[in-house]
C-alpha cells in the first residue's frame, strides 16, 4: 500500500508541471495583454510610452523564457505573483473568495449525492419500467439544462411565488447561518442538478453490472433477503465506480460555478476567473488554473487511494 501511495503521489507532478507549462505558453502565443485592456479598454487615448512603462512595471517586456523562469520559480516557492489588474497578490485575491465558492460546492455535492443514490438505485432495480424511463429523462435533463438558466428559473420562481429574492451580500455561515443558507442554497441547487444527474447515471449502470455477478446469484441462492442482497452485496460494490465520478465532478464544480456565480451575483472563484479572462490578467488566470488543476489531481489521488482501500485487487495488483 505504501509503495502504491508513493507511486501515485509521484505521478501527480508530471501532470501539474505539464499544466503549468501549457497554460503559460498558451496565454502568450498571441501578442496583446492586460495593459491594452486596462489602459485602452474604454477607448481611452493613451500614449505608447505610458503603455510601455506599464508593461515594464509588470515585467511583460522581459523575454518570454525569462518570464517563464519567474513563473516556474514562483510555483516552487509558492509565490504566484500579483494580479496584473489590481496589483494585489493573487493568493489574496483567491483566498478572500474561496470560502464562498467552496461552501456552495460542498452544499451542492451533499444535496446531489443524497438524491443521486436512491434515484440511481431505483432506476436500476426497476429497469425497463416507466420509473427507469422517468429517471433517464430527469438525469439527461440534468446534463442538458444549463446551470445558469436553471439558476435564472429558480430566481424567477422565487420572485413569482414568494415575491422574494435571496440576499446579495455574503454572510459567513458562522456569523448568521440563516442568512448564509438562504443565499447560497439556490446556486448550490443550480449547479447540483447536473452533478446529481451524472452520479445517478453512474450508480444505475454500475449497479446493473454488479447485479449480473455470480456472487449476487450466490447470495440469492443462499436465501439472503432481497433487501440485504441489494444493500450489502450489490450497492456496496456498485458505489465504487460512483466514488470516482463523485470525486471528479466535485473537482470540476468550479466549471459550473464559473457561470452560476454570474447569475446569483456571487463574488466567488468563478466570477474572479471570468473577470480575469476578460481582463487578460495572465498571472491571475495562471494561478487559478494551477489551483483548479492541483485540486483535480489531489482529488483523483484521494479517489485512487480510496479505491485501493476498498478493493484489495488494486492494492496488490
Amino acid at each position, binding site marked *: 500500500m505504501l509503495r502504491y501511495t508513493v507511486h501515485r503521489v509521484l505521478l501527480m507532478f508530471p501532470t501539474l508541471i505539464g*499544466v503549468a507549462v501549457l497554460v503559460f505558453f498558451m496565454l502568450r502565443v498571441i501578442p496583446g495583454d492586460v495593459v491594452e485592456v486596462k489602459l485602452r479598454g474604454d477607448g481611452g487615448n493613451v500614449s505608447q510610452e505610458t503603455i510601455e512603462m506599464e508593461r515594464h512595471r509588470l515585467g511583460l517586456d522581459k523575454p518570454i523564457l525569462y518570464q517563464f523562469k519567474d513563473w516556474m520559480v514562483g510555483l516552487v516557492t509558492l509565490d504566484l505573483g500579483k494580479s496584473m489588474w489590481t496589483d494585489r497578490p493573487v493568493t489574496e485575491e483567491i483566498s478572500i473568495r474561496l470560502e464562498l465558492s467552496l461552501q456552495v460546492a460542498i452544499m451542492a455535492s451533499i444535496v446531489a449525492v443524497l438524491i443521486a443514490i436512491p434515484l440511481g438505485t431505483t432506476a436500476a432495480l426497476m429497469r425497463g419500467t416507466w420509473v427507469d424511463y422517468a429517471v*433517464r429523462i430527469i438525469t439527461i435533463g440534468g446534463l442538458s439544462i*444549463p446551470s445558469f438558466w436553471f439558476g435564472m428559473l429558480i430566481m424567477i420562481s422565487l420572485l413569482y411565488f414568494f415575491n422574494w429574492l435571496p440576499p446579495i451580500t455574503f454572510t459567513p455561515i458562522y456569523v448568521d447561518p440563516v442568512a448564509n443558507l438562504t443565499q447560497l442554497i439556490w446556486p448550490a441547487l443550480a449547479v447540483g442538478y447536473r452533478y446529481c444527474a451524472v452520479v445517478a447515471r453512474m450508480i444505475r449502470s454500475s449497479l446493473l453490472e454488479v447485479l449480473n455477478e455470480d456472487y449476487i446469484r450466490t447470495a440469492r441462492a443462499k436465501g439472503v433477503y432481497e433487501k440485504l442482497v441489494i444493500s450489502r452485496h450489490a450497492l456496496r460494490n456498485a458505489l465504487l465506480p460512483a466514488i470516482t465520478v463523485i470525486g471528479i465532478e466535485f473537482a470540476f464544480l468550479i466549471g459550473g460555478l464559473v457561470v452560476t456565480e454570474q447569475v446569483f451575483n456571487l463574488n466567488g472563484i468563478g466570477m474572479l476567473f*471570468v473577470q480575469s479572462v476578460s481582463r487578460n490578467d495572465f498571472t491571475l488566470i495562471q494561478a487559478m488554473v494551477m489551483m*483548479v488543476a492541483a485540486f483535480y489531481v489531489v482529488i483523483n489521488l484521494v479517489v485512487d487511494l480510496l479505491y485501493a482501500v476498498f478493493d484489495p485487487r488494486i492494492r496488490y495488483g
Partner: protein
Amino acid sequence: MSVAALPSVTEPARRRSAILEFCQQQPLGAASFVVIFVMMFAGIFAERVAPYNPLDIDFDNILSAPSWAHWGGTDAFGRDIFSRIIYGSRTALVIGFTSSFIGSTIGAILGVASAYFGGRIDTWIQRFVDVLLAFPIIVLALVVVAALRKFLIGGIDVNLIYAIAIPIVPRVARVVRAAALSVRTMPYVDAARAAGYSNSRIIFRHMAPNVVAPYLIMFTAFIAQAILLEASLSFLGLGVTEPTPAWGLMLSGNAADFYREAPWMILFPGAAISLAVFAFNLFGDSLRDYLDPRFKV
C-alpha cells in the same frame, strides 16, 4: 441465379431495417432525432421559417408579451424572440457540429495512434491527455478564449470553435484509445504489418474503421456538450457577440433585469438550449445503447 448479385440486393434492405430496428429499440432516440431534424431544418431555412428579421429593432414593441404577432414576445429592443431563437439554432448547430467534429476527429486520431504505436509515443500522448484532462471543460475553453481572442470568418468566430474543440480532444482520445487497444491485438493488424503497409495506412485503413462506433457516439454526445459550452461562453460575454443571434447571448447582459417584467426573455432561449442539448444527449445515449450495449461514454 447469380450469387454475386445477392449482396447488392440485400444491402439496401438491411440498411432500412437497421433504421427501423433503431426506432423500435430506441423510441426515445428516434423522437430526439425528430427534434434534431426540426432544429436543423429551422436553422438552415431560417430566412424562410422566421416570421421577422432577428436584427430588426422595433421601439414600438419593446418587451411585449408573447402574442399571436410575436410568439415568443420581444426583447428590450423590440426584436422578435421567436425569430432570434430560430436564427440562434443556426449559430448553435454550426458551432456545435464543427467544434465537436474537429475535437472528436483529432481526439480519435490521437487515440488510435497512441494505441497503435504503444511504448514511448503512447506514454507521451497519454501524459498530454492527462494534462488536458486536469482542466474542467469550461476553464480550458476560457483559457483558449483568453489566449486567442476573436478571429471572424463569415460571421463565425473560428477561435471560439477551437476553444470549444480543444477540451473535447483528450476526452475522445482516451475512450478511442481504449477501443483501439483491443483492435491492435487483432490478427489482421499483424497481417497488415507483415504485408509491409505504412503506419498511416494501417491506422487509417485498418484500425480507424473499427473504432467508428465509439467515435460516432462521442461525436454525437459532444455536439450536445459543444452547444452547451457555446451557450455558456456567450452568456459570459466571451463567446458569440452581438448582433449575431445566439441563445446564450440572449440570456446575458441585462436580460436578468427583466425577471419580473419580461420572464419570456429568459424562458424561451433557455428552453431552446435545453431542448437542443437534451435531444443530442438522448440521441447519443440511444445510439450507444443500440450500437454497443456494453460501451459507456
